[in-house]
């Protein structure tokens, strides 16, 4: 009696009980499909995040001042930024980063705004994709001119169109806005979240840091800057050198006031969080697999009772205990495997469907396919053994008498 024979027999039996077999599979189908969908979406999400980060550039280093401990003289100046860029050979681009909230309005629309004060290097560091116009240049930064770069979402709500280069908007603190010229329109920054953006979202506006100081009448107390190294490998070193230079220039070497963080590290952190989250949900989904397994056992036990006479007949004509055992085990494994395959198909299609809605390209790894099918068969074996043993142990005479 070979394996193929057994499989054929099991399939015949599954087919002759279509509805029941399907219901048995349902638990496995739900379990496998949800695990696959969740893990694929999770991995796809990680890939998307990694991709976004790589777009920004993993060679980017964020340098921050520990504002709680810093004195006024410890803050980064525009001159520091310039020196870091000029003197450290690893540093390709450097920009200050200040951030203010306020209002921006056109004749058509007034809305809250987030202003990012930076210099012309932000164009490279943020990997900005311009749709129209240009980013502001070094002269505009140095002179603190009233120029802005806005994104297409903001352009749409201010002017109704997106080609708005040359137009002016009023920007600044809500109480006193000033006129600024739009020199460029960039592609919406929201990427995968574009669909969630509505008109009430604050406008996102790049302003020369120097002009932002004028608008808000602040001294250039910069607590944050970004540098971009010439390569990923030099990023770490560039960060350390920049930190050193800041300490030298501010004469505060004795106090540890500056922090250099690579985005790579942040990326790792985010991926870890997403990974844990995915694993957690997948674990919850795996519980439904377990429940599905119990369902398989349940039905197999019913099936053994129902087929007691069949077992008796088979034994009478020469079936060994092992034949009967293997027959029932094959059945439960095949039910689980078919459930696993259906679950795989549903899970993958579900992942793509949901991924489409969320803007994530799911990543279906071969491992997850192998693991889930393997897990389904393991469930089939584990929960099939008890009923199969029960069937195999039946006394042939009593089984033959069973009505």
């Amino acid at each position, binding site marked *: 009696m070979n394996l193929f024979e057994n499989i054929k027999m099991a399939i015949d039996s599954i087919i002759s009980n279509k509805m029941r077999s399907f219901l048995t599979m349902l638990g496995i189908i739900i379990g496998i499909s949800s695990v696959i969908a969740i893990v694929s979406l999770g991995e796809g999400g990680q890939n998307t995040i990694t991709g976004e980060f790589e777009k920004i550039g993993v060679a980017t280093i964020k340098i921050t001042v520990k504002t709680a401990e810093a004195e006024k003289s410890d803050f980064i100046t525009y001159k520091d930024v310039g020196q870091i860029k000029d003197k450290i050979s690893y540093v390709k681009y450097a920009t200050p980063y200040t951030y203010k909230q306020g209002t921006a309005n056109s004749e058509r629309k007034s809305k809250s705004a987030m202003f990012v004060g930076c210099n012309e290097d932000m164009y490279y560091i943020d990997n900005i994709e311009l749709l129209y116009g240009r980013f502001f240049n070094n002269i505009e930064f140095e002179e603190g001119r009233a120029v802005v770069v806005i994104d297409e979402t903001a352009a749409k709500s201010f002017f109704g169109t997106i080609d708005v280069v040359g137009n002016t908007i009023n920007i600044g603190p809500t109480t006193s806005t000033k006129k600024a010229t739009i020199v460029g329109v960039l592609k919406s920054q929201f990427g995968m979240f574009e669909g969630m953006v509505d008109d009430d979202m604050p406008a996102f506006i790049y302003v020369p840091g120097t002009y932002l100081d004028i608008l808000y009448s602040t001294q250039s107390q910069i607590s944050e800057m970004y540098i971009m190294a010439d390569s990923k490998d030099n990023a770490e070193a560039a960060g350390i050198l920049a930190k050193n230079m800041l300490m030298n220039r501010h004469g505060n070497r004795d106090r540890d006031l500056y922090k250099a963080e690579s985005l790579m590290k942040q990326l790792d952190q985010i991926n870890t969080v997403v990974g844990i989250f995915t694993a957690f949900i997948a674990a919850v989904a795996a519980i439904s697999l377990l429940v599905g397994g119990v369902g398989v056992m349940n039905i197999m036990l019913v099936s053994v009772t129902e087929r007691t006479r069949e077992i008796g007949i*088979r*034994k009478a*004509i020469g*079936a060994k205990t092992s034949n009967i055992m293997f027959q029932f085990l094959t059945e439960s494994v095949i039910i689980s495997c078919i459930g696993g395959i259906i679950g795989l198909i549903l899970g993958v299609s579900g992942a793509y469907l949901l991924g489409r809605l969320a803007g994530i390209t799911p990543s279906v790894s071969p491992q997850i396919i192998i693991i889930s099918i393997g897990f389904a068969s393991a469930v089939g074996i584990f929960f099939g053994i008890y009923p199969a043993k029960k069937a195999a142990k039946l006394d042939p*005479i009593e089984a033959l008498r069973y009505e």
Partner: protein
Amino acid sequence: MIKIDNIIKTYTTGKINLTALKGVSLSVKPGEFVTIMGPSGCGKSTLMNVLGCLDKMSSGKYVLNGKDISGLVDNDLAEIRCREIGFVFQSFNLLPRMSILENVELPMVYAGVPKKERREKALEALRRVDLADRVKHRPNEISGGQKQRVAIARAIVNNPSVILADEPTGNLDTKVTKEIMKIIQQLNNDGATVLLVTHEPEVAQYSKRIIHMRDGEIIDDNEVIDRIVF
């Protein structure tokens, strides 16, 4: 060929011990056709089950084809049921979800016969019981007499040395009973050893030897006089 010596079979149900066979001894030579008769509960079915290796005796000795069966384990007994013994039951005991051909093939599946050979042998067995034309049908699509013929085909397909028939005509009418007994007699003529249990004296007349049992013992054992031969 079959030699049993002082077989005792005791069933224990709760605290009650029931002795179904109280020291039965019997010897059946190859080619014999033996009928076992007796009232209900006389132990004839138990004897058949022990002879068919379906049931284990409590004590005694059983030698089949020179092989001592007494101490064998389940797997060995299954092997003997598979190759040496063919069962025919009163209620046919065909598997309802399989076709007639598949039913007949099943013992060979357990005997490890290759698929192609199985088909040929199953068809051959079905020809011997005059049922070669409805092989694709399911058991519920044929008459009782035909079912019993399928069961006989299944019993002989592995070429067993002994055919054990437990009231094979119990569910059949007179006409069909004759047909079935004719087939069984033919198998015996072809060399099979047949043991048959029945209530009906006419059926016993087809055999060569009648054994009467009562209360777990053999009370007489005679040659058949006026045997009906087709």
